[in-house]
């Protein structure tokens, strides 16, 4: 396997059992790879299986059949607690609904993955402050989620996704609940992470326009990949804007 491959999915099938003997196959043998440092989007209508695919990529669920390696680790063979550690260290999740922990301020939310990783208190607080500064949330870091706007919450969520310096950021409709201006700002943060820090980012979206902002677009329909195309992300053009 090539060294610069981050995600490698081969012949991934996923079925759900809705009470025997009914078996419902959602993914019908997907094959694709994502290179290190790539910004890829997976686009598809609802019901296309993109959420199921995201769960598999995010090691939240296991494929029924097929092989999946993430940063050289074989997900098939990992035990439950190894999957927990994998999600903790290798994957940074950004959700449509932010999923910040209630009654826990922004700083503590960002500290959470580091706490689960066993990092010392002083160290993780320092790092969390640094990460919040990167998304320009320093002045609101002691606020609880219910005191933050949607855009602010999503910025905290991105800082939290970056907590353990993951191999890949997995963003599921990150702008879906935001107005277009705020959505723009969030996308800019992803671009910044991609360009300045060389992060591998997988963006899952139903929006073809948004997918155009990425380097490569994988289109999903009815559990099959129906197309792969280059996006129109052009660094130079962005700088001119």
């Amino acid at each position: 396997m090539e060294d610069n491959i981050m995600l490698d999915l081969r012949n991934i099938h996923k079925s759900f059992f809705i009470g025997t003997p009914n078996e419902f196959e959602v993914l019908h043998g997907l094959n694709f790879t994502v290179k290190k440092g790539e910004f890829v989007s997976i686009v598809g209508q609802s019901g296309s299986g993109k959420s199921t695919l995201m769960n598999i990529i995010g090691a939240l669920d296991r494929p029924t059949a097929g092989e999946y390696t993430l940063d050289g680790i074989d997900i098939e063979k990992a035990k439950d607690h190894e999957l927990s550690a994998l999600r903790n260290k290798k994957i940074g999740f950004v959700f449509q609904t932010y999923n910040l922990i209630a009654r826990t301020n922004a700083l503590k939310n960002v500290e959470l993955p580091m706490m689960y990783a066993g990092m010392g208190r002083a160290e993780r607080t320092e790092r969390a402050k640094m990460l919040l500064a990167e998304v320009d949330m320093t002045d609101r870091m002691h606020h609880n989620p219910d005191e933050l706007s949607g855009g602010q919450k999503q910025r905290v969520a991105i800082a939290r996704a970056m907590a353990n310096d993951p191999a890949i950021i997995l963003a599921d409709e990150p702008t879906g609940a935001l107005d277009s201006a705020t959505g723009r700002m969030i996308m800019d943060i992803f671009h910044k992470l991609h360009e300045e820090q060389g992060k591998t980012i997988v963006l899952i979206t139903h929006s073809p326009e948004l997918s155009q902002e990425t380097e490569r677009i994988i289109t999903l329909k009815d559990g099959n990949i129906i197309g792969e195309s280059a996006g129109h992300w052009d660094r130079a053009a962005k700088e001119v804007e």
Partner: protein
Amino acid sequence: MLFTENILVALAGLKANIMRSLLTMLGIIIGIASVIAIMTVGNSITSIVNSTMQDLGANNLEMGVVQKSQDNKTSDSGANYGTGYVRDMTDQDLITQDMLDAFKAEFPDDIKYVLKYENVGEKGKVTEGSKSANVQVIGYNKDNFEFKDKKIIAGRGFLNRDFENAKKVCLVTDKLVERLYNGDNDAIIGKQIEANVGGSYYSYYVVGVYEYVQEQFSFGVSDNPTTELIIPYETARVANHNQNKGDYYFTLVTSVNTDNDEFATKVRDFFNINYYSRNDAYEVMVVSMTSMMNQMNTMIGAIQLALSAIAGISLVVGGIGVMNIMLVSITERTKEIGTRKALGATNGSIRLQFITESVVICLIGGIIGIIFGIVLGTVAVKLMGYEAAVSLSSIVIAVGFSMAIGIFFGYYPANKAAKLNPIDALRYE
């Protein structure tokens, strides 16, 4: 590290739902409070009983003439007269001075005092002008007087001749002097006072005043307590027309080195073999104070335990309440659990988080309960007029028990949370 975070998260959760948290804790609070209150009251009574018995003399043997046990006997007619009743006690059944002298001669090293009482009247009254004081007119024999060692404040104690000649002399308390003679102890010495016991009048010369000590085992403080007006035993016998009769009840004060339980058997055997073997109805029974004290303590302990067990039921109910609210809380926070799992929480850390939360609820409930229980128990004991003795061990047990309830009733919900599938939890709305 994770531990303190868990506690902080739990506290934040409790704060967010203060009303719900308090209602959840109520069962634990009531349960712990009642157990602590019962323990406090029980322990206080035990220590009061013990110290009272100690005052009466833990080294004492109580002996008396009682009905023979008639387990294997029925009267000729087949009628059953209760437990061993044959006939009324007569003068022939009593323990005479001769018997006592022989007894003392048999065990000179063991017997320090033979205490005799002769009660003339418990509800007596001494009147002076418009004022009166309640008294119990009671005769003490020489041994009893020496053993009780009353503190004489004015005048003198009894002399040998007072006993030998059955002199009409008495000792009164400073309490009585305070009520009737404005506390002038010296003025009353040599005066003749009259005690009215149910219409019979008894008059004695006051030879001394002794210090009144309130008995511990009495309810409340009265400004006119019944105090003992002590006269010589022999004088009291005359007053009761009991001269030359025996006694049916004594207290033996034994020497420090005597094993009372063993000696009790010897005393019983001495009297029953020598004097009561041919008595058809009566014999001598001896009870040691220590064994009485132990019996009393066992009894109080058993009552305490039974009451605590009943109160403990509310702890179980409280625990179920905690389990219920934990299940609700976990359902409410399904998405949070999913998020935590996505962020790398293991099943173990989720389980620990929710067990910690349930332990925190129970522990806070327990601490509030302990405070309530101590206050309740102390007030109850104070109302009875005693000093409260809060037992430290019951507090330690209460804290431990509420934690155990938290773990026990928190485990099932916490385990349920830990086993949630992360994708189902994340998708939950």
